């Protein structure tokens, strides 16, 4: 387990001209979960059938690869047909919602730009048909619908153009190639952009069972400014604190095991 005491910090002052800020192109407006530190953990309420369970687990794992957030699958608090929302979390449901034209829908409730709760519905009316009852379609739709309540929009909404390799891209063929069954780096970069700031309050429900070190790390990270880079296993991270007038402190952290 990583300990907050066990890190090596390298700091250096940088006098620089203003860097170019690249905003992610698939942010959903300015919607985001309010939270006081990163990474934060969002609960996904499991109201799906056993057929959908592996896809929910996989999507949760995919989105948790983001360095700014984690998702965790917890027991659901609603029934699949009604799929009612719960404050501070996202309820995920599947049912036969009818021939209404949609495979999935993600709804969020907001207070200003802060997401307060979300609901994902997966429409088994279509997933019972041979066209959509495939791992590829299930993966794409589950991944995409969970991506929306994180604050992500579609990367592209044209069905017929080449795949972008992201589940946030509309397609007629989830398998591609490239496959649109998982998030791509652009999605993770966009999440970093969305959650590059911290809020003074939180709309994320309290998580039980989270690893204690995550909170410690997040608290410490808050002192170092925003996380700008990390390696895949998060052992090496780079934080940036803006002091104004082009002055910045970059903090390079190597976390100990």
């Amino acid at each position, binding site marked *: 387990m990583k300990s907050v005491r066990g890190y090596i910090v390298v700091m250096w002052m940088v006098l620089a001209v203003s860097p170019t800020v690249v905003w992610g192109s698939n942010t959903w407006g300015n919607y985001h979960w309010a939270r006081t530190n990163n990474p934060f953990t969002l609960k996904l309420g499991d109201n799906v059938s056993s057929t959908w369970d592996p896809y929910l687990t996989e999507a949760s794992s995919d989105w948790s690869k983001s360095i700014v957030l984690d998702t965790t699958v917890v027991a659901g608090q609603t029934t699949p047909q009604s799929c009612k929302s719960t404050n501070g979390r996202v309820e995920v449901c599947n049912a036969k919602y009818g*021939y*209404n034209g949609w495979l999935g829908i993600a709804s969020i409730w907001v207070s200003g730009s802060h997401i307060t709760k979300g609901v994902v519905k997966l429409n088994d009316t279509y997933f019972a048909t041979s066209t959509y009852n495939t791992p590829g379609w299930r993966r794409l739709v589950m991944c995409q619908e969970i991506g929306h309540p994180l604050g992500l929009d579609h990367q592209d909404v044209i069905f017929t153009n080449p795949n972008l390799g992201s589940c946030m891209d509309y397609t007629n063929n989830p398998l591609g190639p490239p496959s649109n069954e998982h998030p791509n780096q652009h999605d993770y970069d966009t999440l970093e952009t969305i959650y590059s700031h911290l809020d003074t309050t939180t709309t994320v429900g309290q998580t039980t069972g989270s690893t204690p070190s995550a909170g410690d790390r997040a608290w410490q990270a808050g002192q170092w400014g925003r996380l700008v880079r990390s390696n895949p296993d998060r052992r090496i991270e780079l934080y940036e604190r803006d002091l104004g007038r082009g002055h910045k402190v970059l903090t390079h952290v190597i976390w100990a095991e």
Partner: protein
Amino acid sequence: MPPRIALCLLLLVGRSATAYSEPSTPSVSSGPAVTDQRSLIKRLHALNIEASWEDEIDQPFFSVTGKTLKMYGDGVQAFEYPDAVSAKTDAARISRDGMKIGTAQLQWIGPPHFYLGGRLLVLYVGHAPSILKALESVLGKPFAASE
């Protein structure tokens, strides 16, 4: 760059931008305007288009229950509101590409097309040319759609 050329370029850009944002007037066939479910099916029948009402349909993002209109073997959803203002209020929540409605994001089974006529809001999800042509001929171009 000489000022004259710069002005010409500016005018060209302005013109093309205007042409993009204001599509040409839709070619609605002559006849009484479609304002509700009754007038919609009446106009379609007048154009010799086979259409019949089927089941009711509920969408979580609309404030009224709709009816499915069967046309050319496919379903078109028609939502009739108490008045045109209510229909416009729901229509205003739909993004131009039809992918977002209020604070909901959709994964459609095909490209969505939204039409408005009086107190009627019509949704067709698909790309069948016969249906798109028929709807455009009685309701005009969609106010929100994707490819």
